[in-house]
C-alpha cells in the first residue's frame, strides 16, 4: 500500500498507457507547482528582497 504503487495500479490500461498517463500527471503537477505554488512561496524566501523599507523588509 504504497502511494505511488496505488496510483500506478489505479491508472487504467496496460503499462504503456499507464506510463503515458503518469507522465501527464507529473507534467500537470510540475505545471501547477511552477505556475501557482512557487510564486506564492517565493516572497518568503530570503533572497528576493531588493528594496530598502521602513520595516527592513
Amino acid at each position: 500500500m504504497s502511494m505511488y504503487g496505488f496510483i500506478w495500479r489505479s491508472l487504467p490500461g496496460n503499462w504503456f498507457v499507464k506510463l503515458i498517463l503518469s507522465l501527464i500527471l507529473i507534467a500537470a503537477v510540475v505545471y501547477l507547482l511552477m505556475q501557482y505554488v512557487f510564486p506564492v512561496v517565493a516572497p518568503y524566501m530570503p533572497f528576493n528582497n531588493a528594496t530598502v523599507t521602513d520595516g527592513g523588509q
Partner: protein
Amino acid sequence: MASAYDKVQGNVPPAPDRQAVWIRSNRHGGAVVNSPYSGDEADAEASSRPTIRPAQRRHVTPPSDDSTSSRPDPASYSQPLPSRRELRQREAAAATGAPTAVYSDAPPIRQDSAVGSAAGHPYNRGHEHNSGHEHGGGHLGAGGDIGRAHAGDGGRGDRPRGRGPVEREPLGPVRGTIRTFGELCITAGLVLILFVVWQLWWTDLAANRDNEVLADELAQDWQNQDPNELPEDPDEPVVADPVGKNEAFGIFYIPRFGGDYYRTVAEGVDLEPVLNRMGLGRYPNSAMPGDVGNFSIAGHRVTYGKPLNQIAELRPGDEIVVQTKDGFYTYTFRNFDIILPDAIEVLAPVPDMPDSKGKDRILTMTACNPMFSARERYVAYAELTDWTPANEGAPGSIKDSEAYKKVSKKGGA
C-alpha cells in the same frame, strides 16, 4: 509447383485433392521458411519458386485446419515457429478429432480455432484463458473463429501471465505506512529541487521574456506619443511625467552589464508585478528621471531576470542611460554603499542626509547583498551628467550597442 499454384487458385478443390496440394506446397514452403536457419537456401528450388508466394501460401494453409489427421508442419506458415505449448494444444486437438473450420479465404493468423475447440483439455487449462472459446455448439465460420482468437490474443491472451508478478503479497499496514512516508520524503525533496530550478532558472527565462515584450511595447508607445516640450535652457533636462502604479516608463541601458543589457523600469517596488516581471522598479515618491532629487530604483540581484546582478561590477565613471519617451538621461556612477535593509535615508534627495533638500539629480539603485541573502542592501549612486532629447538620437555610449538596436528596431527613437 506451378500446378499446385493453379489448383489453389482454382478455389475449393475437393478435399482429398486439397490435401495433396497442401502436402506438396508444404514441402516447398518448409524449405523457404527454414532457409534462414538451416542455410540451405541456395538449392535448386530457388529457380522453381513461384513468384506470388505469399498469396499461394495464404490459400493453401487453411485446409490444414480440417486435415487434423495429418497435421500440418508448422514450419510452412509465414508466422514464427509455434511454441511447444501450441504444439501440445494441436496434439490435443488432434486427439479429440474435432473437426474445425471449413475452408475460407481469411488468412489463418494462428491456429487458435483448433485450440479453442479443445479448451476443456487438461493441457490447455491454466495456459489459455477459457472465455469465449466454447465450441460446444455449432461451429462458426473460420473467419469468425479467427477473429475471436485474434482478439483474445491481443486483448487478454497474454495478460494473465503479465499480471502475475504485479499482484505480489500485499504490504502490511506498518510497512505500507513506512513506504508511503518514504515516498513522501522523496517527493518533498524532488519538489524542493524543482523549486530551486524554478527560482534560479525559470524565473530568469520568464522575466527576460517579459522584459523584451515590455520594452518593445514601450518603444512602440513612444513612437505614437509626442515627447514633452523641451525646456528653454538646452542643458536643462526634461522631467519625465509621472505614471500610474505598475506602469512601465523607461528603459535602462548599462554598458558595464553587457552590450545587450536593457531592462524596463516601472512605477512601484512591489515584487508582483514590478520587480518580478517588469525589471526595475521606481520607489514611489522619489524623483522622476531628470528631476532634481533622488531617482531611486530597486531591482533583483538574483532570480527574476536579475536586472542588477552585476551591480557590484560598476566602476566610477560608468554610464547608466535611462531612456524615456522624452529622451536619454545619462547618469554616471559615483560610488556604492552597503547598508542595512531599513536604511531608507539612502532614498532621500541627498542620500544619507534626510534633512537636505539638495540640488543634484541623483540616481540610486538598490539590490540585495550579499547575493541570495536579505541581510543587507547594496546601493549604487549615480549622478545625471548628460541629457539627449529623443529627436537627437541615442547618446554615443549606447548608440551602437546590441541592446539599443534591438529596442529601436521595434519602434523606438
